[in-house]
């Protein structure tokens, strides 16, 4: 069975803390993702996402705080704007925009993080691996 | 004239057919027609809609599927039992993937054997809960609108004090029915005011009348009905109004037994909501089947007609 590779960009205060809570609550989810820890989702540069796709990722999950909760006031609003633009860019590259997923996850939503990981892995399995041509475009 | 798909259900076509007649009459006066389904079967009746035995959902699923296949997305019923069963079956089909798949495999076995290709027959697709099930009172409240209804009264029931009786299956379980708040409902209160009558508040409006126990344990039903009726009468109600044929049977036909057992009890007339609606819309008092009532209603009906003459 196709096992998609996922790169997660989680902010420390909310989504990262939510992922940790999924751990302390022993909620099982798919092992396909590796998390790169950021202080804020506002730090994530579209370039990092394209780099991930270029280097073999089948899906990128960006996790930030719910609007209004950001520890740094409005980092997540910037992320929201950047992901919206980036998704259109992915279409131009021929990369299915469903491969980039933005989720707001609070420090209390361990269960939500686990279900997002399971659901995202499932969707990527149905999408199948990325075609080498589009991966080249991302690079 | 707007046509609304209508599922009468067995009781309304037989023992309580007079209630069906009054419903059709009232609807016409309100500008829509209760268009009975061409082919329908028993709804399976409450209560054993248990999870594992998906079989007993098939009866009501077949009705829902026929409604959708005949091109209609709304189905109205006036019996609480049918409403409860149809609504819960629909809810389960929408919510539970496994139930939806198993139901449709059962229904698929009833695909008519056709040796010729029929262009008109719509393609056989699984039923996924597309139809919206509504109680007639819900339709009057949400579609026609109580204010609209109030305006079209030709014989408002001024001065009549009515005690609303909900029973059980019209409201509960609320997460699958979702008609009104089970602890503090207001749909019948709104209906009464829309008829121009006055609402009588009493605490037993959502307590059980004994339902099918009146057949196996009549005394139990007598006791329960007494509590409900004496509380309503005690609060000054002229009559009780309800929308379930079985509650109607219990609260109406039990009153002789109640009077024998509880000497202080004064019989109180019981009306089906369509009867009062039909009268208020100017319906004919002889076509409401009042003769079949155990408790004589002529006193109240006379007061309604008397009201008309004085204006």
């Amino acid at each position, binding site marked *: 069975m196709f096992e998609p590779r996922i790169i997660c960009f989680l902010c420390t205060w909310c989504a990262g803390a939510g992922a940790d809570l999924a751990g302390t609550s022993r909620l099982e989810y798919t092992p396909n993702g590796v998390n790169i820890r950021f202080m804020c989702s506002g730090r994530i540069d579209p370039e990092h996402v394209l780099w991930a796709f270029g280097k073999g990722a089948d899906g990128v999950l960006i996790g930030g705080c719910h609007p209004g909760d950001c520890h740094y006031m409005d980092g997540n609003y910037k992320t929201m704007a950047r992901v919206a633009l980036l998704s259109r860019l992915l279409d131009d590259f021929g990369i299915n925009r469903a491969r980039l997923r933005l989720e707001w996850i609070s420090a209390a939503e361990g269960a939500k993080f686990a279900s997002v990981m399971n659901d995202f892995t499932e969707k990527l399995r149905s999408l199948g691996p990325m075609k080498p041509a589009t991966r080249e475009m991302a690079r | 004239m707007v046509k609304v798909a209508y599922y009468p259900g067995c009781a309304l076509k037989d023992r309580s057919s007079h209630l069906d007649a009054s419903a059709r009459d009232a609807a016409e006066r309100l500008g829509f027609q209760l268009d009975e389904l061409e082919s329908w079967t028993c709804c399976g*009746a409450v209560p054993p809609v248990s999870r594992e035995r998906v079989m007993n959902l098939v009866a009501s699923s077949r009705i829902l599927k026929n409604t959708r296949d005949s091109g209609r997305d709304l189905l109205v019923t006036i019996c609480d039992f049918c409403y409860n069963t149809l609504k819960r079956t629909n809810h389960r089909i929408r919510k539970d993937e496994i139930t939806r798949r198993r139901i449709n495999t059962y229904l698929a076995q009833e695909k008519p054997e056709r040796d010729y290709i029929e262009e008109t027959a719509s393609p056989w697709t699984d039923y996924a809960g597309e139809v919206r099930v509504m109680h007639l009172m819900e339709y009057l409240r949400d579609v026609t609108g109580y204010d609209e209804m109030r305006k079209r009264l030709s014989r408002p029931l001024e001065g009549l004090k009515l005690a609303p009786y909900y029973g059980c299956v019209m409201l509960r*379980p609320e997460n699958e029915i979702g008609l009104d708040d089970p602890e503090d409902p207001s749909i019948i209160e709104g209906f009464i005011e829309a008829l121009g009558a006055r609402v009588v508040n009493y605490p037993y409006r959502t307590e059980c009348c004994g339902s099918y126990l009146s057949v196996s344990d009549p005394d139990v039903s007598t006791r329960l009905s007494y509590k409900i009726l004496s509380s309503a009468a005690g609060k000054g109600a002229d009559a009780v109004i309800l929308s379930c*044929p079985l509650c109607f049977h219990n609260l109406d036909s039990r009153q002789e037994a109640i009077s024998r057992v509880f000497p202080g009890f004064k019989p109180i007339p019981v009306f089906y909501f369509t009867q009062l609606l039909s009268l208020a819309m100017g319906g004919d008092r002889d076509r409401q089947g009042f003769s079949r009532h155990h408790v004589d209603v002529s006193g109240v009906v006379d007061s309604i007609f008397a009201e008309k003459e004085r204006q």
Partner: protein
Amino acid sequence: MSKTSLPPPENLPMRLTRDTVSEGFKKRVAELSGQNPDSCYQCGNCSSGCPLACEMNILPSRMMRLVQLGQEETVLESGTIWICASCFQCTVRCPRGIDIQSVMDALRQIALDLGTDHFGPDQVTPEQAATVPQPGLVSLYRKLST
């Protein structure tokens, strides 16, 4: 006076084993009703709100306790499951969200499967058969036929 057998004592203690408290009867009730009896914390809300409780020898909350401990005989012999009128007050008010009506339903079906015959069509008087609306009869019989 050499008795060969003795009547059982008035109040035998419940013989609990791993099977009674998790497998067998209790599992069957859970499957049939789709509910988890163990989520009941015995608050008693279903009993205090039940309109038929005054007619029952065992209250609904105590029935749930007996199901939790797998006491099949006591449960199936009680009149409670037949007096229950499926009015859903318990289901609506249970703070743990247990559909207690479905549990009672499942118990009736297990009793019927074991051949208990609570109320048959032969016991319906002609007058009742003529006047009681069909949903009343069907749901009563339903206790017989599934």
